[in-house]
């Protein structure tokens, strides 16, 4: 009786996996199975490269090529990596690589490697003609999976030390970097006022 039950359960699971295998989401466990959060890793940024658009119509403006690239579990702090990611946002790829080359931070070397890999991927796989004709559209850092260790204090006290890891994400888009208008304090103040004035008061008299 028990073996029959397990046999039916296994065939049910197998039918689920067979259904899912054909799609690009086959890395995930089947819908009926529950796994712990520690084992499930989010690979959404890599999946963005697999998106396919329908062929463009003759009159449409040419859609710019995009490359998404990331590096996971870098032994660095996400807050420190954020400063580097913020520095290169909106720069052209050559400018970004130059700035990272002359930066003394540990993360600068890693980000430069990621940018060069992404540039290479863009030329080989994503139909980018000129490797310099790319700019950094998005760049940010994320928290990786931390390891926990004990930090010994005096008087028998202890603290839990986190060994920090981070991810770094970058999106390169073909074309010259878009010109950014510098926002003055006056512009920010006017925007704030506009936001306040465009509020709607609901359920009022």
């Amino acid at each position: 009786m028990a073996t029959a039950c397990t046999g039916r359960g296994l065939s049910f699971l197998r039918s689920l996996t067979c259904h899912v295998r054909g799609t690009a989401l086959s890395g995930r466990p089947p819908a009926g199975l529950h796994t712990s959060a520690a084992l499930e890793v989010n690979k959404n940024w890599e999946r963005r490269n697999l998106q396919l658009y329908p062929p463009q119509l003759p009159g449409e403006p040419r859609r710019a090529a995009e490359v998404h690239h990331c590096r996971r579990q870098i032994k660095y702090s996400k807050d420190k990596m954020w400063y580097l990611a913020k520095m290169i946002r909106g720069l052209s790829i050559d400018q970004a690589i130059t700035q990272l080359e002359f930066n003394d931070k540990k993360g600068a070397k890693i980000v430069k490697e990621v940018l060069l890999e992404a540039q290479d991927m863009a030329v080989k796989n994503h139909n980018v003609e000129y490797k310099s004709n790319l700019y950094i559209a998005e760049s940010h850092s994320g928290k990786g999976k931390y390891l926990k260790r004990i930090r010994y204090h005096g008087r028998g006290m202890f603290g839990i030390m986190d060994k920090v890891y981070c991810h770094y994400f970058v999106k390169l888009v073909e074309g010259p970097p878009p010109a950014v208008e510098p926002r003055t304090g006056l512009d920010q103040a006017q925007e704030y006022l506009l936001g306040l004035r465009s509020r709607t008061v609901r359920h009022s008299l």
Partner: protein
Amino acid sequence: MMSLAGLLHSLRRSLLHLEGKLLQSAGFDGHLTPALALNGPRLQVQPQQDEHLDEDQQSPEQAPSILDNIMWMAAPKKRRSIEINRTRRRAVEKLIKVKDNVVPCLECGHLKQKHVLCGFCYEKVRRETSLIRIQINAQEGGPLKAPATETVVLYEGEMPGDQDQDKRIVERARKRPTWFT
């Protein structure tokens, strides 16, 4: 070494003693008690024995626990919100400044900072220098055997000139590099 609690207790006692001395000099009898008997909190300073007894009993009013006596140390009043933290961490002076002093090297074409030697050219000179040093070490054969004369480096097909008569010659088995004049 005195413990923190003992140190603070002795400090408190010395402050109370000083207060008593000041009151005596001001003209009081030594105790801040009213003339008539009143119903209220104790104002008389307790004698030494009672203090010791109270300390042993660990009464909550007098016992100087570590947590209560640190009353003049700075501590944050409220937890800093994430908005406050972000404004501090992302302030313009804390962001990394974009460098504008990067130029291409005229010799090799790699990028360099204006006030710094080109890294590529420095590395190529460093490599050749280390090979020359290996040659010198092979010639000398041991430490502290450097001659008291100048050294001149000669490459393939070169003869020592008029000025190189008294110098020690180090030979390198390759063509003279273009940058080595």
